[in-house]
Every structure is written in structure tokens, then in C-alpha cells.
């Protein structure tokens, strides 16, 4: 927990924040609308005797009163998928439409890929990329289990991703949910901060900048790019966005999710960022009883 002390200047009610970080997460699933409506998924959970609670901000996110959401008929059929609540944010913010071409730059293990496909009614194309070959099997397992037929899986370094195999000039949208220091997942994985170092934060931030730049380049003019992490570190969040605002032709745009959030921070550790980074949102564990998360929405200018 000491690692998190550095965020005391950013977080209101810091004790409540630390307390929330020590508690396990509620059990949350997303309804996979490729295979079932929320009503039908809830009926299946009822038949299983598993209690569920709606989440106000999304029709497809449910809290379950079981620690084993995978051990349900609804899960066997691929009607629900265990996915942490904040992890459902970026695909909703990207809001892809049926028939569009969408890039998921860091896709494994596929929770967000399958959510994108569902939002598109499984029409169009999701190019689900991951540079880690070992994680591709989980990605493929999840796309197939959830009945996704509009995804292509690639194994490349997102920083120099090529659209050539797809005969495409540009994507309509891109989701950039990058590898990060994962501080916000401490409720799921209490040892996640054991190996935390500032060196790792700096090195992963370099990779994040490269991936976000490539996503902006690979997205058409007027298209949308969503950048997200599950960490609190401004070095991996606002600083990355600030860098890409400088280097590429894009701008930050406002967005709304029905969850309690705080604006991005425009100043950190003696550094000032572009004021527009305040349009990004920070999600803290004690505000919505979730993991920690960061999300920024960009529009590609030219």
C-alpha cells in the first residue's frame, strides 16, 4: 500500500480510498448480447438461484451474489462473462457501431474485444491484436465462447501495426487499453504492487506512448480513439495523452459515463500537462466500489 501514498495529493478522502483498496471486489459480469438479452440472462441466473443487481450506468453490467460466476449455466452458454465493472467502461466510451472497422490494439484476454463485437451486433470488423503470443489463446477462447464472428486476431507489436493484411486505409475507431503498472487491480490481486518500481512505470509509459501514437495514425480523420489503463500513475495516464496531443493531430473530447469520476490531473510531480487532459476521467475504488481506472477519449483531427 505504500506505493499508493504518492497519490494522496490527488485523491479525496484518502483513508476511504486505502480502505477500499484493501477490500475484495464485488463479483460483476457483463451480459453478452450476441447470445442473450439482459432479460434472458437474468432469467437464467434466476433459474440457477444466483442473485443479481442492476448497475445503473449500463444495461449489460450486473453484480452477482456468487464468488463463482463461471459456475452458472448463463456462463456456460456464453450469455454472461466475468468482467470487472470499470473494465467495461472504455468499450462503452468508444461506442462502435455495427459495420465499422475497429482496432483493439492490446486485446488479450478479450473482455473488451468481445464487448466491442457485442456493441457492433457482431457486424463489421474488430481487429483484435496482442503482442503476447501466450495470451492469444485466452483471447481466442473468449471470442469463440462468446460467439463472436466479426473479429480477426493478430499477433504484432501495436507500435508498428500494419493494416495491409486487411486492405484498409484506416480504422473507424481504436481502443488502446494498454499494458500498465496495474495499480488499480490491487483489489483483485493484492500482490500486484509488490514488484512496483518507478523504472517500470517509466519504461511502460514509453511503450504506451508508442501504441497510442500508432492508434491515432491508424484511425481515420474524425474517428475516435479511446485510451485506458487500470493504474493511477499520471506518468502512464495524463502524461501519455499529453505527449500524443503534442506529436499527433488529435484532440481530447468530453464524454459521460454514469459512474462517479474525477477529471484528469493537469499537473503532477512538477510537470504541467495540456489543460484539456482534464477531459479524461479517473475512477477511484472508493467512489463506485470498483477497481481503479483511467479513460480518455480522443478525436482524430487530420
Amino acid at each position, binding site marked *: 500500500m505504500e506505493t499508493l501514498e504518492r497519490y494522496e495529493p490527488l485523491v479525496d478522502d484518502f483513508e476511504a480510498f486505502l480502505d477500499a483498496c484493501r477490500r475484495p471486489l464485488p463479483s460483476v459480469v457483463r451480459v453478452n448480447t450476441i*447470445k*442473450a438479452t439482459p432479460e434472458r440472462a437474468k432469467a*437464467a441466473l434466476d*433459474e440457477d438461484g444466483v442473485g443479481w443487481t442492476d448497475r445503473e450506468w449500463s444495461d449489460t453490467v450486473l453484480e452477482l451474489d456468487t464468488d463463482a460466476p463461471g459456475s452458472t449455466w448463463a456462463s456456460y*452458454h456464453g450469455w454472461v462473462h466475468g468482467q470487472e465493472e470499470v473494465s467495461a467502461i472504455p468499450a462503452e466510451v468508444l461506442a462502435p457501431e455495427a459495420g465499422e472497422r475497429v482496432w483493439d490494439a492490446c486485446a488479450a484476454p478479450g473482455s473488451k474485444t468481445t464487448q466491442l463485437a457485442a456493441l457492433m451486433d*457482431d457486424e*463489421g470488423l474488430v481487429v483484435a491484436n496482442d503482442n503476447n503470443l501466450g495470451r*492469444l489463446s485466452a483471447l481466442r477462447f473468449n471470442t469463440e465462447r462468446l*460467439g*463472436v464472428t466479426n473479429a480477426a486476431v493478430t499477433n504484432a507489436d501495436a507500435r508498428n501495426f500494419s493494416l495491409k493484411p486487411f486492405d484498409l486505409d484506416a480504422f473507424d475507431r481504436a481502443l488502446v487499453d494498454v499494458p500498465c503498472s496495474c495499480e488499480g487491480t490491487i483489489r483483485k490481486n493484492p500482490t500486484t504492487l509488490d514488484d512496483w518500481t518507478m523504472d517500470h512505470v517509466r519504461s511502460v509509459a514509453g511503450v504506451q506512448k508508442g501504441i497510442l501514437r500508432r492508434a491515432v495514425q491508424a484511425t481515420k480523420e474524425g474517428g475516435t480513439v479511446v485510451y485506458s489503463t487500470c493504474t493511477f500513475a499520471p506518468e502512464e495516464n495524463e502524461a501519455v495523452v499529453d505527449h500524443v496531443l503534442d506529436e499527433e493531430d488529435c484532440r481530447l473530447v468530453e464524454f459521460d459515463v454514469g459512474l462517479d469520476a474525477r477529471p484528469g490531473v493537469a499537473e503532477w510531480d512538477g510537470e504541467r500537462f495540456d489543460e484539456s487532459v482534464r477531459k479524461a476521467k479517473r475512477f477511484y475504488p472508493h467512489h463506485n466500489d470498483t477497481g481503479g481506472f483511467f479513460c480518455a477519449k480522443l478525436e482524430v483531427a487530420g
Partner: protein
Amino acid sequence: MSGESGGGAGKTNVGQRFDRLPETADEREVEGRATRREVVDWWDDRFGVPPETFDGYTFWEKGKGKIWILRGEAPSPIRVEALGMTFLRTRQEHWKPTTDAVQRFGREATRNVIRLTREQARTFVRGEDQELDWDGDWGYLVAAHDQAGAPEPLGVGLYVHGELQSPVPKGRQRDL
């Protein structure tokens, strides 16, 4: 690019890429490759899934006999790790649909659907074989049970000699 060009006689399947299935036998260039029409007809003949179910989908072969289904189009050939979903195993005497394909498209099935009780369904998703009475054809069946008010496919089962075998892959098996 040698060995990868599309046309010409005597072509064989190339393992590391996806090739789109020819529409019909007349357009077939790779020996033994299933055609789109054969694939769609097979689902109709075997399960009564209407051919128009697959309008808007394309079919691909990667790995000998492994057919994939993609919503929409892609350039052919294409070298990617996966394209849509694994769908059907061909190039063997009895074609075999995948568990995931039967879950996705088996709701449309009207033939060779075996309805299981909840207890039989539990046995099936544990990956266990069970003795069952079945008056219909032997071979691959859509195994289904009632879920939330309507029949829902569990996956593909293999019925032979009075026994329903469960080919549910290990990673998909559950103890429910």
C-alpha cells in the same frame, strides 16, 4: 510469394494462412477443399439450419479441413492468427461442427436436435458420455436443453450405439 499464389491446378492447402472457400465445385482450385455451398448445405441437411442464416458470412480454411466462419469480408488469402470462429471440421468421412459453432448457430436447428433433461445436460457439459434412448440418426447431434424458457444448444454431441458422447472441449467443460 512462391507456393502462395492462388490459381492453377494441383494447389494444396497452405497451413499458416486463411483461404476463402470457393463458392461451388466449379471454382475449386485446391483439391479436397470444401465449397461454401457444401458447407451451407451440410448445416441444412444435417440440422435443418436454413441456408440464409449464413448470408453475410464468409467461410475460410486454415489448417487442413478446418473451416472458419467470418461475419463479412476479408482479402483472401490472409495471414492472421484467427478469422472469425472455428466452425466445421471437413476432409473426413463425417464432418464435425465445433461446440462454439453449435452454440452460436444451433438455435436455428430443426433436425437431429436431442433435448436433454437438466441432469443429462449436467453430464454432457462435464464432458461425460451417457447412455440415452434416441430414435433418430446416429452421428453428430445438436445437444440442447431448456434454458430461460426456450431450448438452448449446449454443443455438439456424438450419438452411437445407444450412447451420447460429449466432445465438449476440456476448457469449456463445467461441473454445474
